[in-house]
């Protein structure tokens, strides 16, 4: 016999099952009918002949079954039979089955959703292969303990030239520099200029080749265009091309205006090139002989050679920094102790979200563990409950192996259902979960979709779990039946004792596991509640905000800026539904706010150059009234704090506490230093000025890239200056309106008011303050919300599992209870007996769980907000909850058992 014939026969039977059945029927029918015809020829009536033929042939179904078995259809048949049987058994226990399938499915779904996000956001971050090797550089001035990811032109050239001379060539394919900016984009045509504020990135020409991205249309900059005095050329990105120009291919060669300056579009960057968040790329046009070491406005990034990791480039970068330090420390004292460090951009973007994802993965793992424990106890419980059935089947000749396969199949069916439900749920839930995550936390270029890998992971998890539990209960059954053959008695055999002990351990560990999970859950829920009711230091509801920018070409002088703003505020205030209006250079909880150096006249700040930095906001007098930040000391700004009046500032409490500890900050003086960076050439830097602190306001929560910082770190020191005294900072201005009505409804009216004053003036980023706040706190909220959902799910799952296993334990003692009652035990005795044992196991589980949870919750203490990791309330509540579950689980079945007639109970098994 050849392997091939065996295989082909097997495949025939497997894949042409119905055909085989038909043929078998035809063959047997032919036999019987031909036989009958022969009998008819012998003189028997046709009917009688058929009857006799059938009898002589024998049981057709039996022979058919033997035929199927003969050709190996047996396995499939058994599997289907077992599956059908398994489904029947599962549907006989609908509550527990549903709970188990649901918990397992939920675990699988969450695994696949999280895996998809992790995969898209982190593992496959960049679209081109090179994008995955981009490393951002940061310089650290270790002597002054400051660090920045910004470089001055000369500092960039130090690195780039070193690379060109071959110093870093082993590690880096090249370096590029870029600077972020924003411009008002208008069309250069007469009709419809359609103003819009767009993010602009000024970059060195090599950025495109280093990323390995050819243009979608036209070309990218040439090195020749990327020099001072080069032509005004622009590359637009896919995003802008798609949104504003409806993918018009004739855009190449067209002229657009940025802040009124004409630029020629030379090309369109493809969709995958959405790094750095730009809509438009312009040549950076660095002077290759630049000696500028003070204006740090550039991001410098390198592309690693293949196979290099960012970390391994740290030593050569440090070596380079030492050389730069040796050369320039004489003229630039801040270079002492200069260090360049590589930052994996993927880590920088995903940042604390990655940490949160790991934590979530942990939570999911725990949920899976709970689900696993539940399924294990379900199957074990079922195996025990079916002891009689199993004994009968064994007695009738079924082999233990056959029974084990039955159990195995059932658990595969169970996990198959759960896996399917979980996969569908996971695909369905991805979009809503993703919608909760602010874009910049994932990286705009990441494409996140339900990945095949995530499906494999989740279905793999389902299969492994199902197989595991199937095998476990199968082994239990096999061992038990083997022992049973020896014992052959209905009293408790050694195997049953072992089963009882196994169950006791199961209950104990279920209890302990449940305690840990529910404690973690409780802490997360409490944290979530704390964060949703967090005191922000301002009141974000009923505030509408938007931004506008007054370009230097149209409003060259500060006076014009101040005039425009005060007139705008006047007009907006008179709109119906507006309670009050204010302008400021930044909005609460908004990213990218200005920082200003300052010093304190007559005092020494403990830094190398005697200056420190603080967040710096320029505000209209009504600002604090609009956002409702309370005043702590002194006074708010007044309209009289104008250009000619005494210079004043306000500071936040943190500032006052840091720089004027134990004294009143009001009336003290601050010198606002000349800005060293980000000054716009041609507009002139504002002069150094000394201002008096007029008032101190309460700390507000501030935006930080790391959400953890927003929640856990104290506010950074802040300085507020009156708009009328610092109008230069009002060019890029935000409007804030406190409204009586729903704030979003006023957006259009305000926009029209702005356009009425200047039709070229783009109004953008129209958002309610609530939306800004939600966006900033979004990631933390999301993670906590997800954690809370998982936590509650785990809690329910754990309680269901605990109840099921404990009540089952008591149900198993129906016979014993009947015996005791028949011998005269009272109800009280029985209740006491059952509860005592329940309480013993529960107490053991609680003690174990308490120990475990103290360890586990310490690990998650960094996630908690204003909740201690061994929060007494939570621990007490969890203990109470689980004890209650344990008691009910013992009491209910005990009562049921007592109601049973002792005679019936004695026969119960």
């Amino acid at each position, binding site marked *: *016999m*050849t392997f091939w*014939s*065996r295989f082909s*026969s097997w495949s025939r039977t497997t894949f042409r099952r119905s055909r085989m059945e038909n*043929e*078998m029927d*035809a*063959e*047997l029918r*032919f*036999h019987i*009918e*031909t*036989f009958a*015809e022969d009998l008819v020829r012998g003189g028997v009536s046709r009917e009688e002949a058929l009857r006799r033929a059938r009898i*002589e*042939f*024998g*049981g*057709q179904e*039996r*022979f*058919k079954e*033997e*035929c199927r*078995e*003969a*050709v*190996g259809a047996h396995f499939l048949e058994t599997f289907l039979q077992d599956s059908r049987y398994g489904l029947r058994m599962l549907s006989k226990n609908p509550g527990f089955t549903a709970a188990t399938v649901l918990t397992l499915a939920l675990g699988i779904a969450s695994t696949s959703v999280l895996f998809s996000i992790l995969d898209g956001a982190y593992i496959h971050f960049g679209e081109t292969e090179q994008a995955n090797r981009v490393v951002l550089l940061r310089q650290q001035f270790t002597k002054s303990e400051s660090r920045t990811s910004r470089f001055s032109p000369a500092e960039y050239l130090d690195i780039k030239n070193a690379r060109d001379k071959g110093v870093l060539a082993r590690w880096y394919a090249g370096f590029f520099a870029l600077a972020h900016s924003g411009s008002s984009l208008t069309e250069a045509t007469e009709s419809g200029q359609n103003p819009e504020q767009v993010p602009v990135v000024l970059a060195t020409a090599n950025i495109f080749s280093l990323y390995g991205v050819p243009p979608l249309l036209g070309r990218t900059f040439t090195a020749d265009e990327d020099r001072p005095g080069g032509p005004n050329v622009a590359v637009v990105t896919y995003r802008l091309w798609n949104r504003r120009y409806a993918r018009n291919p004739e855009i190449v060669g067209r002229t657009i205006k940025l802040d009124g300056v004409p630029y020629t579009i030379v090309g369109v960057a493809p969709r995958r090139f959405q790094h750095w968040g730009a809509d438009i790329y312009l040549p950076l046009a660095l002077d290759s002989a630049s000696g500028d070491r003070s204006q740090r406005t550039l991001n410098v990034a390198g592309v690693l050679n293949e196979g290099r990791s960012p970390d391994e480039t740290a030593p050569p970068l440090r070596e380079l920094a030492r050389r730069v330090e040796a050369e320039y420390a004489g003229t630039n004292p801040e270079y002492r102790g200069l260090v360049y460090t590589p930052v994996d951009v993927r880590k920088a973007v995903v940042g604390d979200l990655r940490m949160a994802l790991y934590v979530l993965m942990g939570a999911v793992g725990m949920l899976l563990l709970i689900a696993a424990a539940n399924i294990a106890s379900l199957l074990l419980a079922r195996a025990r409950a079916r002891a009689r059935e199993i004994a009968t089947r064994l007695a009738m000749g079924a082999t233990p192996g056959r029974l084990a396969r039955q159990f195995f199949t059932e658990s595969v069916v169970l996990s198959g259902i759960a896996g399917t439900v979980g996969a569908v749920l996971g695909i369905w839930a991805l979009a809503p979960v993703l919608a909760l995550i602010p874009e910049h936390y994932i990286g705009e270029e990441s494409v996140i979709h339900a990945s095949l890998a995530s499906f494999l992971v989740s279905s793999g998890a389902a299969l492994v779990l199902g197989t595991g539990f199937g095998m476990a209960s199968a082994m239990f059954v096999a061992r038990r039946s083997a022992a049973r053959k020896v014992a052959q008695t209905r009293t408790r055999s050694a195997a049953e004792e072992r089963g009882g002990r196994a169950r006791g351990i199961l209950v104990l560990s279920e209890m302990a596991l449940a305690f840990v999970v529910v404690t973690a859950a409780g802490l997360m829920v409490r944290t979530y509640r704390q964060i949703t009711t967090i005191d922000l230091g301002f009141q974000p509801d009923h505030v509408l905000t938007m931004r506008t920018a007054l370009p230097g070409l149209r409003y060259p002088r500060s006076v014009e800026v101040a005039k425009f703003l005060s007139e705008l505020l006047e007009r907006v205030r008179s709109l119906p539904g507006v309670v009050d209006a204010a302008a400021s250079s930044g909005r609460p909880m908004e990213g990218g706010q200005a920082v200003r150096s300052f010093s304190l006249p007559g005092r020494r700040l403990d830094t190398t150059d005697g200056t420190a930095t603080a967040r710096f906001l320029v505000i209209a007098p009504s600002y604090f009234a609009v956002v409702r930040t309370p005043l702590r000391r002194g006074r708010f700004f007044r309209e009289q704090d104008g250009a000619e009046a005494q210079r004043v500032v306000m500071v936040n409490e943190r500032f006052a506490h840091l720089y004027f500890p134990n004294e009143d900050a009001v009336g003290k003086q601050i010198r606002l230093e000349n800005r060293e960076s980000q000054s716009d050439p041609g507009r002139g830097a504002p002069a150094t000025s000394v201002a008096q602190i007029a008032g101190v306001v309460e700390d507000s929560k501030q935006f930080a890239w790391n959400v953890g910082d927003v929640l856990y770190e104290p506010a950074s020191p802040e300085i507020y200056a009156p708009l009328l005294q610092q109008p230069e900072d009002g060019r890029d201005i935000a409007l804030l309106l406190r409204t009586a009505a729903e704030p979003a409804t006023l957006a259009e009216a305000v926009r029209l008011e702005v356009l009425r004053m200047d039709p070229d003036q783009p109004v953008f980023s129209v958002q309610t303050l609530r939306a800004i706040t939600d966006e900033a706190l979004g990631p933390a909220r999301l993670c906590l919300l997800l954690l809370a959902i998982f936590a509650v799910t785990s809690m329910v799952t754990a309680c269901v599992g605990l109840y099921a296993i404990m009540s089952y334990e008591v149900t198993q003692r129906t016979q014993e209870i009947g015996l005791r009652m028949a011998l005269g035990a009272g109800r009280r005795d029985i209740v006491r007996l059952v509860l005592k044992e329940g309480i013993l196991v529960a107490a053991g589980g609680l003690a174990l769980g308490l120990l475990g949870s103290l360890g586990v919750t310490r690990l998650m203490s960094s996630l908690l907000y204003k909740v201690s990791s061994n929060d007494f309330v939570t621990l007490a509540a969890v203990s109470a909850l689980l004890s209650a579950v344990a008691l009910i689980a013992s009491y209910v079945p005990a009562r049921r058992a007592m109601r049973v007639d002792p005679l019936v109970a004695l026969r119960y098994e």
Partner: protein
Amino acid sequence: MDKQLDLLQGTLDMLILKAVSLGPLHGYGILLRIQQISKDRLEIQQGSLYPALYRLEHQGWIASEWGESENKRKAKYYRLTAAGKRRLQAETENWNSMADVIAGILGTKPEEI
């Protein structure tokens, strides 16, 4: 007619192989041929033929195809494969030597021991 004999365990396969070695036959035909050769001395449960046929086909010793029977019906015909021919030969030799040994043992007279 002589008394019918019950079929020895495991011999049905051999008989089937022998029956189809003389030419392709359908199941009923195989039954008739065995009865004809054995002169009706063997008792074979008719249905039990089919599991044996399926088993032999699965093992590759016989092959089947559908054809038309003498009474103008569609019938499944079995024929011996090359592997089946070798198998029949081996089984026959095996059976003969076994029969010799058994007969020898059973035919032993007391004085020969």
